[in-house]
Structures are given as C-alpha cells and as structure tokens.
C-alpha cells in the first residue's frame, strides 16, 4: 500500500474515532466570553471565576497565542480559531481596570461591586473589599495571559492575603473595611485561593513581606477538617466533600510548592495513615451507574435506562462529591485533581490518580455529560440538562488530567489508537494544584526566578 494512502486512511480513522468535540468546546467558550446568558445573573458577584473558566478553558484547548507545551504540534493540525495577542492584552487590561482595587493589593471578584473611583472621596466603600477568591481568579487568569504583574503591589498583596487568615489557621474571604471584621463562609476554598495567589506572586520569597502562619494553616486542615471517613470537610465534624478535599490538599501542596519534591509535603502533612485513608476516600467516589442505581430509589436523578457500558461497550464511571450522591462532572476534577496531588504512598513519585480508572472517567464525561452539539459539559447526564461554563471548564480540566496520566501509563502511540484517548491528545498538559495548563505554570516559575534574582 502506498504510504500516502495509509497515512490518509490513518488520519481519516482518527478523525472519525475521536469522541472529544474539541472545535465545539472552543466555540462554546468563544461564545461565553462574549456573553453569559441571563441565567448567569446569580454568579454576578463572582464573575471573575467565569472569566477564569472561559480563558483557562480556551488555553487548555490550545486556542490562545501562548503555547509552550510539548503537544503543540499535535494541535496545529486542528485548525482551531486562535485568539489574537491584542485580544489577550485587552483581557488583561479589563481585569486590572475593572477588578483591581485602587490600593493595588487585592482584586474584587466582580466589576458589579465597584462603585467607581474612590480617590475623590475620603470614605472608601466598605462593601467593596479585597476578595481572596477574586484575587486568585485574577492572578491565575493573568498568568495564563502571560502578564508580568508589574501593575500589582506584591508586598501589599501578601499583607492582604495574610490578613485573611484567622487565628485558628483558616482563611476568610476578606476583611471588611472599617470594621476589620472577617467575612465569608468558613470554607477551605479561601485558604486554597490565598495559597495559590501567594505562590503565583512569589509571596513566599519576598524579603520582609508579611507571611501566613503556615503551621496553623496546615494544622487547621489536618487536625480540624479531616472527617472520620478520611475525606476533608469544611471544619470539625462536618461531612467530607470532594471540593473541600481538593481545596484542603491544594492548600497543603501550594504552601510548600518548590520547597519539597512534588507531593512530598502533602504526604508529610497528612501522615501515612491519613494519606492512605484520603486516597481510599477519593477512589471510593468513583461510581458506576450500577452503584447509583442501588443508591437511589426513584426520587433521585439517576437515568434508569443507563448502563455501565455504552452501546459500544465502553466502561463508564464518573465521580461524585459525597457518598451516595450522583456523579457530577465537576467532581471528576475536584476528586481527580485531589488524587493528582496525592502520592500513591509516602515517597512515591506516582500520583494516586493512576490508581483510579481514568479511562472510564474520561469515557463517562465524553459519553454522558459532553454536549457534542452546543459544546461544553453539563453537570450530569440527561437530555434536559444544559451545559454550563463551570462544568464545561471542569470537564475539560478533568479530561486534561486524565490525558496526562494516559500519556505516562498508556503512551502516546497507544492513545492515538484509542477512541477515548485520541481526541484528548490535543489538550495541554495540566497542573492539578493550580488548576491551569502546565505551560502557564512554567511561565510562572520563570517570573518567580526573575523576582528571586532581582531582574524585576
């Protein structure tokens, strides 16, 4: 057979077999970054989260002009619509113009909270404080957009982030101006956001800057929030939860990032027994439809006609966030991302995500919650469930993490021949802890090096 024909056939076969609607997802996020439909009104005050979801998804899909990843060449054949450098510059400016506080030490989480320039008055708007999550979303997005952070006062930002920490080690959303009162729910999310923000701005390496009480932060997570079943909850005796486990482990990882071997700090903080219980806890949240059918009597949302295998015999198993709850797209990331940060055992270099069934998880997302017509992913299976930007981003992030495991365990050549994996080769490698593509993290490491060596 002439080589050319074989190649053409091979290419044709690859195209027909891919289950991942790469182009549709690119279109979905290109649409949402222009306009979020009216039902997003309830996310108005956390809008930066949605800006992050859109831009981080476009980057993971390879649609931004910054692409320093190894898989770059694979993606070039996709003919994806690329966002221009000018557009990225406009996005960076918008984040600064609408969300950076005049004090340049923190971001609000949405332009909706700003009441205009306060320079003309002596009374600052007490209801427009810095927001730990807004600060993380802004910084992570700016990192993806290759910003140099010269518009931020980094030492002041470390002061702000440190001020969010409570005496017990936990973190608040922020501090209300005037009253010095912490606000926001007692929730590990803000500790995670503060830890990620601190690493991104190199706050752990600014001489003389304010610093967190690191021991108290770790102690709060490990001694207070670990539940009797080994998972992590919102505080003492609260129910273990996939999202909170992610935030707890992410905080442990990011507070020590660069100081120890990857995953070593988490293992050390949790202890061998705690680590084993948490790994087990995470893996037990991977659920097949049969588990769900047993768990739910008719009043809950499980598609009764569903099987553990789809028509082509693919095995399907997503993740839930709490025991005996239905699988949900975002928990493929929250729980999968937690596993990606945990070593299979202390001193192991293998991530615990390899102990899960990554292929069944990817197949669940691709076959059950992916919307191949509109693009995006829905929260759960079902014809009536519409895709949304949050679940679309976390679906893509979870698939990117799965593909990273497959690159190691299955190998690229084998992946090309597999219907679940072949379409995922076009996704960028992903950093589970910072929740952004790996090449943006490498860029951040370069920035940190520059600050350390005093170039900037």
């Amino acid at each position, binding site marked *: 057979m002439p080589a050319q024909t074989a190649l053409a056939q091979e290419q044709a076969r690859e195209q027909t077999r891919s289950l991942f609607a790469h182009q549709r997802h690119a279109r979905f996020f290109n649409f*949402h970054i222009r*306009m*979020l*439909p*009216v039902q*997003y*009104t*309830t*996310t*108005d*005050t*956390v*809008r930066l989260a*949605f*800006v992050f979801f*859109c831009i981080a998804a476009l980057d993971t899909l390879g649609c931004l002009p910054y692409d320093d990843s190894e898989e770059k060449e694979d993606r070039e054949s996709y003919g994806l619509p690329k966002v221009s450098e000018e557009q990225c510059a*406009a*996005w960076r400016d*918008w984040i600064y*113009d*609408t969300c950076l506080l005049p004090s340049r030490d923190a971001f609000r989480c949405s*332009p909706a909270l*700003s*009441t*205009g320039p306060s320079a003309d008055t002596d*009374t600052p*708007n007490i*209801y427009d404080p810095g927001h730990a999550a807004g600060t993380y979303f802004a910084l992570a997005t700016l990192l993806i957009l290759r910003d140099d952070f010269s518009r931020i006062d980094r030492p002041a930002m470390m002061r702000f982030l440190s001020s969010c920490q409570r005496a017990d080690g936990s973190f608040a*959303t922020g501090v*209300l101006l005037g009253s010095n009162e912490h*606000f*926001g*729910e007692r929730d590990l999310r803000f500790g995670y956001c503060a830890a990620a923000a601190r690493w991104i701005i190199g706050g752990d390496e600014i001489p003389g800057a304010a610093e967190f009480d690191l021991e108290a932060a770790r102690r709060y997570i490990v001694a207070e929030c670990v*539940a*009797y*079943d080994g998972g992590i909850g*919102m*505080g*003492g*005796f*609260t*129910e*273990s*939860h996939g999202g909170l486990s992610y935030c707890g482990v992410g905080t442990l990882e990011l507070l020590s990032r660069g100081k120890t071997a990857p995953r070593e700090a988490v293992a050390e903080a949790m202890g061998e027994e705690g680590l084993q219980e948490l790994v*087990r806890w995470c*893996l*037990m949240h*991977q659920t*097949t439809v049969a*588990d769900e059918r*047993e*768990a739910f009597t008719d009043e809950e949302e499980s598609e009764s006609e569903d099987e553990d295998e789809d028509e082509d015999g693919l095995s399907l*198993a997503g993740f839930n966030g709490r*025991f*005996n*709850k239905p699988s949900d797209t975002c928990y493929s990331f929250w729980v999968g991302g937690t596993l990606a940060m945990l070593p299979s055992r202390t001193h192991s270099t293998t991530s615990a995500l390899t*102990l*899960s*069934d990554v292929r*069944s998880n990817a197949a669940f997302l691709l076959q059950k919650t992916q919307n191949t017509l509109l693009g995006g992913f829905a929260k759960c299976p079902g014809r009536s469930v519409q895709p949304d930007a949050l679940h679309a981003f976390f679906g893509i992030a979870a698939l990117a993490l799965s593909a990273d495991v497959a690159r190691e365990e299955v190998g690229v050549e084998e992946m090309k021949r597999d219907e679940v994996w072949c379409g995922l080769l076009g996704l960028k490698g992903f950093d589970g802890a910072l929740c952004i593509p790996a090449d943006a993290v490498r860029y951040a490491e370069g920035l940190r090096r520059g600050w350390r060596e005093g170039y900037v």
Partner: protein
Amino acid sequence: MAYLEQYNWDDIAPIPQNDGGENAVAPIAYSDEYRIAMEYLRAVMRVNEFSDRALKLTEDVIYMNAAHYTVWQYRTRILFALDKDLCQELIWVEGVGRRFTKNYQIWNHREVIIEKLGDPSRELPFIESMLELDSKNYHVWSYRQWLVRRFDLWATEVPFTDMMLELDVRNNSAWNHRFFAIFGRAEAVLSSVVDDEIEFTKSAIFTAPQNPSAWNYLLGVLKKSGRPLSDLEQFCLTLSDLTKTFPATSSSTTTSHEEDILSARAIEVLAEIYAERNDFPRATHAWTLLAERYDCVRENYWNFKKRSAVSRLAGCA
C-alpha cells in the same frame, strides 16, 4: 420592582456598572430590572445609607441574586441600625431559603440574627422543613451543627438521625451528623454507647450491604473508640463468606458462591483484617476478588494494595 414603587429615589444618582464598555469580558446579559436595581444598590451602599427604602432594595436584589455576598452584610447592618423586628426577618429569610435552596448566604445571615436574638426556638422546625426539600443540603447540616453547639441542643440529635436514616439509610449527611452527635461533645463516650452504635450500624448494613456511608461510619466508630478491626471478622464473613473460595480452586473463583457475596465492602474489610495479621494469601485472595469481580472500577487500587502488601512482606524479611 417594589423598592421603586414604594419609595422616592429622586435624590439618588444611580451608579452604572463599570464593565469596560466594548471590552467587557464575559458580560452577563442582565435583565433591565436587575441592572437598574444594582445601580441604585451601588449608590446607597456607597454612602452606607441605613433606610427603609434601602432595606426594601436589598430584598429585591436578593430575590434576583441571592448569592450577592455583600448585599447581605449591608442588609444586616440596616436591620440592626433601624432596630427592625428580627423575628419578622427570620420569617422572611425562611421564604428566601425555600426559594433558593442551594444558597449559602442565608445561613450565615440567619446565624448572625439568631446570635443577636439569642432565641433558637424557630430553628429546628425550619431546618427540618429545609431537609424535606433536600435531605443532603450541606449548608443546612452545617448550620444545624452550629446551632446544636451554640445552644447545647444535643439531646435531640441522635433520635433525629434515627429518623433521617429510617427515611434513607444511604444519607451520608445524616450518618455524618450522627457521628457529630455521638463524638462531637466534650465528654468521653461510654463503651456501652459505642456498643449500641456498632449494633445499630451493623443492622443498617444488613438492609443495604453495599452502602458506603454506613460502612465508613462503622469503621469510623471503631477507630475513634480504639477497637480493633478484627472485631468485624465474623460480621464480614456473614455478608461475604470468603472461606468457601479459599484456597482457590479452578472453578471456585469463577462461577460458584456468587450468592455468598453480598458486599464488596465486607471483602475489603476482611482483606485489611487478614493483612493486619500477616495472612497475605487470604488478603491477596480478597483483593483479587475485588479487582476481578466485585469492584472492578477500582481494579488498579486493589492491585496496588496487593503490590504494597508484597513489598511490605519483603521489607520485613
């Protein structure tokens, strides 16, 4: 829009949102009602106005976006500054809660109000009505924990979880709350209470042998009270009799004895018990059954457990 109809706003200059004009990133297609209400809200919050019209405005904004996190703080301050009837506020919040069941802010708000009132008498009935709408609502269960601790309401809690587990034995939130109700108090837990919990959970497991919530509770109680896992050996064998397939013969692992295996979790616990007493052939047999037959989605994990046991054995020798 009640706030506009009921009050005069002529002296207020609404503050439009600065969204970067043409360059807005991921702008929300607001309804006109929401956009305008937010413009007024920004104007009154800017000057921290405490007034009836501002209170009404917060109400209208909350109905359109209950997740607006600073409007709640503002509302609380208005209520306190104008010395409003806080019982009336509780009743209003109950309506908001039923309408936006996933909302967190109402619980924080309620906590602040109850703290000020010092009277929790409305709370347990309200919580129960919310759990009727969603029996696993994380915010509601967390709020109940706060309330129990704050007002020392421990006496009702174990019977309450009895009732919730009667309704749904797989409700993980209810199991977690039971753990809180038993072990969350300062004083030591009596050995007889632990015995009762173990028996209670075992009978719950007999009704749903695969239920991870009940198994985790059982293992959690055992660990918390310092009892050995091997206490469960007979119980596990009743649910999953591995003795019939061990030692394995060519046919025994493949087809027969299916009816003797009711619970993959029982097999898992047996594997741990065997591994603890260094009976690796039996432990490996149990992990193999899980990997190949009864819990295939975790095949990698059970094989990892086998490898870990082998290397531990090699390390000892």
